[in-house]
């Protein structure tokens, strides 16, 4: 074989290997999605799925209204807690965190990222449930907020670090105080990254089950009082999938599909938003 042939052969071989790797990575995701859609779509299209509370076990029909409201409320409250605090910590780390305090915060945040999610449930249980003697949606929000915090603050920090130093210098050279440069120039320039980070954290929190088990606890009744136990889509999936009743298992699939759709739309929203402001 002459040299060019060897080169062409190697080129093809490597390209084929890369294609294989891509397939190995993509196939499980696609199969999973396909499976959830096939198994979940009938349940999703059942009348009353979005509008009815669950029926008692063994009674056909019923929906997951309790869980939809619960997931939106629990994740919503968690976001209200975690996004502002996380973004502010991220700003601190990037703009004023080149010191020991900053390093400490980064270290703690990395440790939090690595914790199993059930540990956040224990946190919510200990801090809120035990002190109020009551399972509640707000305890779940606190647990999820702590889980979201490291994702948001790290995303914010890296987004701000990507803002060129030249922009900061331009602002300062005009005689702007550094806090104004941060608020009016650096943060807006990094907004895309910050919003993406926040939405990814929200998406992740929405899919978590373990932190909810002994905080929100679950509730078959439609409940919107944050101080009461509350259902959530992830809890519906967890409980109904283990039930012996076919209609509840179908409901679990449908709830899983709904959750995937919610998370996916949050992701797509994030990407669309970033593309729009980066045009």
């Amino acid at each position, binding site marked *: 074989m002459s040299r060019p042939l060897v080169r062409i052969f190697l080129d093809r071989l490597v390209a084929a290997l890369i294609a294989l790797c891509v397939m190995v990575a993509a196939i499980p995701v696609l199969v999973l999605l396909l499976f959830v859609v096939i198994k979940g779509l009938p349940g999703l299209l059942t009348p009353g799925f979005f509008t009815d509370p669950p029926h008692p076990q063994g009674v056909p029909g019923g929906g997951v209204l309790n869980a939809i409201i619960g997931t939106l409320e629990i994740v919503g409250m968690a976001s209200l807690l975690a996004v502002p605090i996380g973004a502010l910590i991220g700003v601190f780390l990037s703009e004023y965190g080149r010191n020991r305090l900053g390093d400490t915060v980064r270290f703690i945040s990395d440790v939090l990222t690595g914790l199993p999610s059930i540990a956040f449930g224990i946190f919510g249980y200990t801090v809120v449930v035990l002190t109020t003697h009551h399972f509640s949606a707000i305890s779940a929000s606190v647990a999820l907020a702590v889980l979201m915090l490291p994702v948001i603050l790290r995303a914010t920090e890296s987004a701000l670090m990507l803002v060129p130093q*030249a*922009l900061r210098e331009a*602002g300062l050279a*005009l005689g702007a*105080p550094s806090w104004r440069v941060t608020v009016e120039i650096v943060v807006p320039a990094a907004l895309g990254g910050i919003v993406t980070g926040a939405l990814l954290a929200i998406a992740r929190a929405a899919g978590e089950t373990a932190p909810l088990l002994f905080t929100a606890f679950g509730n078959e009744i439609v409940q919107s009082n944050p101080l009461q136990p509350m259902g959530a889509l992830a809890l519906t999936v967890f409980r109904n999938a283990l039930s012996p009743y076919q209609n509840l298992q179908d409901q679990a699939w449908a709830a899983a599909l709904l959750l995937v759709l919610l998370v996916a739309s949050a992701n797509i929203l994030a990407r669309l938003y970033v593309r729009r402001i980066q045009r």
Partner: protein
Amino acid sequence: MQTEIAPRPVADADAEIKLDARHVNFFYGDFQALEDASLAVQARRITALIGPSGCGKTTFLRIFNRMHDLTPSTRATGEVLLDGHNVLDPDTDVIQLRRQVGMLFQRPNPFPKSIYDNVAYGPHMLGWSKSRINDIVEQSLKDTGLWDEVQNRLRRSALNLSGGQQQRLCLARALAVEPQVILMDEPASALDPIATLRIEELMQDLKKRYTIVIVTHNMQQASRVSDFTAFMLMNQRRAGEVIEFGPTDDIFNRPKESRTEDYITGRFG
């Protein structure tokens, strides 16, 4: 080594000195980057700093509006007098100083905002009225020759402008806070020849009202645009020094120092 401080240019005996750097030493940590650098910048003239890479031109320039404060563990000694007031004095209001001494950077760095908001940023920060801001935005854009090119798209993103337009926008942004001195750090090095020419023509207009100090590695540019030139060089300890300072014509045609002549004629650097 010179024992004298850099001689005052004598072209104009009663010339008004706007910025007067005297015996400035500058340190990055333990490393000395400038040694005994002196420079008397005449008002409403263009003063160029030339010299090979690493000779401390940009370092020197950034001391004039205390931009070096942004780099941790730096230290400047000596005096830089702006209208007689030492800007290196710890009591100096850096914010106020930077409003008087504006800066144009090597690469165009417009804010990712609209053209209007870029120019209006400084005036807005100063709390000027809406109509005064509108006037100064228009005036600054006219002063930089951008008005005709952008007046119909003031609300569009500044990032869509060409490199040369962006750099003139940055200049307009600096002019809008009505500074007295403008520092330019190789303002045309990222631009094509035509955009470079526009900037150089602008400088000739602007020097009627502003004092300009420009760092350039381009000797032709220095000889074309400047009234005075300072030639800088690294000494044996790798610290930058001002070797020779005088009217541009003298520096380029009748240099007193052999090192200046060697550099000008391209024997090194």
